[in-house]
């Protein structure tokens, strides 16, 4: 599974992207966030503000209950501020 981070989520995690293989129990966006938060202090700092973080699965905006699986591209980022 390919994980991408943007904006302050990227800065706190410390990398822009990483390949991960979460345990089988991780099957949705919320579960993935909880698992990623255990990977290190940077991850923990980023995901401590979980309510402020939005997600996309395969480049589509996703909700916490949306499924994730092997081979997916999952991105985490703050609410968008374009325009």
């Amino acid at each position, binding site marked *: 599974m390919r994980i991408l981070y943007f904006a302050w989520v990227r800065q706190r995690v410390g990398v822009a992207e990483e390949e991960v293989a979460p345990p089988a129990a991780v099957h949705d966006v919320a579960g993935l966030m909880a698992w990623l938060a255990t990977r290190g202090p940077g991850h923990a700092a980023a995901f401590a503000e979980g309510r402020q973080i939005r997600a996309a699965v395969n480049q589509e905006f996703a909700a916490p209950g949306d499924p994730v699986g092997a081979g997916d591209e999952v991105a985490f980022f*703050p609410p968008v*501020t*374009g325009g």
Partner: protein
Amino acid sequence: MSAATPGRAVPTVRVQEAPFDLAAEAAALTAGRVDVGGLASFVGLCRADDGLAALVLEHYPGMTERAIRRIAEEACARWPALTGCTVVHRHGRLEPGTPIVLVLTASSHRAAALESCAFLIDWLKTGAPFWKREEFADGRPARWVEARAEDDAAAARWADA
């Protein structure tokens, strides 16, 4: 990516670091056509609020273009009178006074062009994956711009339209 619907305008969408040329983009929307009666444009610029030295815009290559295209296709579906629309959004480091985003809409009559142009910029604010970081001239640390409730409200008003 949705298939083109016959008779519906196909949006032009670009995300780029380089500046854009409003006149050239407008000319491209009307070139070879005699059915365009109105062309609306919106250009968003970087303001020098609060001692701002520059905005740095980050995006999600691939998803950002897709998200903008979907919003533009939604505009073409809501306003079938549109003959064309163009969205160019810049990324990278942008200093005060420089253009950030261009929205152009063309239609036979003005209403569809004006309304869809407003719809597009409202939705781009909340639906396109961009993140702005502010850099300051006086050495204050850079900070990420937070999403604004007013922008959500501006986009939401179109849900009732």
